[in-house]
């Protein structure tokens, strides 16, 4: 089965084609970063306006990359939530209009399920069951994944998401938008031991996270300190260490509590090199296999939506003709493919 995937939940317009036998046939992405940069954050109305300009040419392009035409498709998958309502609606409308016109089945995919399953696109995919650490711009959670659609949330952030903490701290340091990857980049040249930040919630039992206090600690630490490039790098390094330590410790705790043999890391912060190295080392120490998507499939993309949708469509799941866009959509409301989802 060959499925077109469409993603427009935030500030990335993307289209991809996944084939059940041949794997990923093509993936294209257009990032709106430049559009939102002057506002220092994503402006929802501008995001929607751009999706409606860019999506159709991206679909045409990805079909060309895949060397196929619309007649070669067997289904359409689109991100139905969670995300920005207006942005989601663009992808959902195009997907459902296209599917209806071609007489194809369509399915609305949960964006976070897409992230969680992104490592399945790699040459050596993980096997169920696994522990998933999802660290993105909007979410930070640990989940026990028995199979696709069977998610038990073990812990989540009580306030800021990990990616959000990276972005906000980067803004504090005056780094260009979007700050997270830039903060990670300058942290490489930071000197150890110059600053020290708390490891939030580390000494408390449980698997929840909290990152807003860390941001406050950064504000306090840099107050009155002249911010030159070296100091910025030092702060970035200490901040990154605090986040990574926390994520690593909670993963270790969750692996121990669940006895799961595999750890999957997904979401934009999963592209962080320090985090990847530390979790790999954790895996070595504990005999747990650790899997990541390739860095470009850590952040938003349509390949993960095409894959997740393919699994659902191949199991016979089909949506009605309703164009679905849910700004909020709890992950644990999902059901496995075929068992009809909420």
């Amino acid at each position, binding site marked *: 089965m060959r499925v077109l995937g469409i993603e427009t939940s935030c500030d990335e317009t993307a289209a991809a084609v996944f084939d059940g036998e041949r794997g990923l046939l093509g993936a294209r992405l257009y990032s709106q970063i430049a559009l939102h940069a002057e506002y220092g954050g994503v402006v*929802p*109305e501008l995001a929607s*306006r751009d999706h*409606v300009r860019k999506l*159709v*040419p991206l679909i045409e392009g990805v079909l060309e990359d895949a060397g196929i035409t619309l007649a070669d498709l067997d289904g359409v998958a689109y991100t139905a939530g969670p995300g*920005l309502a207006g942005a989601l609606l663009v992808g*959902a*409308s195009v997907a459902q*209009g296209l599917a209806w016109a071609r007489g194809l089945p369509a399915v609305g995919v949960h964006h976070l399920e897409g992230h969680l399953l992104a490592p399945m696109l790699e040459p050596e995919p993980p096997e169920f069951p696994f522990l998933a650490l999802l660290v993105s711009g909007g979410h930070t959670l640990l989940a026990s994944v028995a199979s696709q659609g069977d998610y038990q949330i073990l812990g989540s952030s009580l306030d800021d998401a990990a990616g959000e903490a990276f972005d906000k701290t980067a803004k504090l340091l005056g780094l260009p938008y979007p700050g997270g990857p830039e903060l990670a980049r300058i942290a490489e040249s930071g000197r150890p031991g110059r600053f020290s930040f708390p490891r939030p919630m580390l000494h408390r039992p449980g698997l929840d996270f909290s990152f807003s206090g860390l941001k406050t600690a950064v504000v306090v630490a840099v107050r009155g300190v002249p911010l030159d490039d070296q100091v910025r790098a030092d702060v970035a390094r200490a901040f990154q260490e605090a986040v990574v330590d926390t994520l690593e410790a909670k993963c270790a705790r969750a692996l121990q509590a669940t006895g799961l043999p595999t750890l999957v890391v997904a979401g934009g912060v999963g592209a962080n090199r320090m985090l990847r190295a530390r979790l790999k080392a954790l895996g070595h120490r504990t005999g747990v296999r650790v899997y990541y998507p390739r860095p470009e499939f850590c952040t938003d993309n349509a390949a993960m939506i095409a894959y997740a949708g393919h699994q659902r469509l191949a199991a016979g799941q089909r949506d009605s003709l309703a164009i679905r866009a849910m700004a909020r959509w709890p992950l644990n409301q999902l059901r496995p493919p075929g068992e009809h989802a909420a």
Partner: protein
Amino acid sequence: MKVLAIDTATEQCSVALRLEGRTIEERAMTARGHAEMLLPMVERVMVEAGCTLADLDGLAFGRGPGAFTGVRIAVGAIQGISLGSGLPVVGISTLAAVAQQFAGTGEAVLVCMDARMNEVYWGVYARGGDGRLTLQGTEGVGPAESVFLDDPRVVMGVGTGFHAYSVLKGRFPGLRIDDTALPRASDIACLGELALRRGEGLQASGAQPVYLRDQVAWVSAAQVK
């Protein structure tokens, strides 16, 4: 000619199929249900006419102005349908669509549609050679106080703007008013057919909204995610 038309720009969601001059239309009032009901309505209208996309000559949609998110539902859906079918598509002004409802009533109308935020989308439409009411000058958006009329042929004021802002009725006391008219897919199909005959049909990616409200000054910090 056979044309499928859809509109989701206002609190009325409508779909119409125009078949050699005969029109089938389905309409529904809804605050937020456009996304859910649009394609089922399209499907019903097609089934009722015993028609498939392969029988059609083109597509038309309400391009705005109207609710931004609402307009984009029709645009997205028609982009998908056009891409999937290869049919040419034309965007029709929702103000022009409202004006057509009064083509039999007078020589010219002033259309004012509620644009929220104390503003109206507006335009003047007068009878042209083809018997249709066509746009005079340009369409605009602004406070009710900024609407002006310099065309003596205008005898009617129509659209939800007259309902939302009573100052408009005061400004143009001589006009007969219909303050309830909303754009309809049947009129969009009719205007769409003319545009398609003129060869104005575009490919899927050419189907785009016209917001009129384009300045980003209304982008407040609160809207940044």
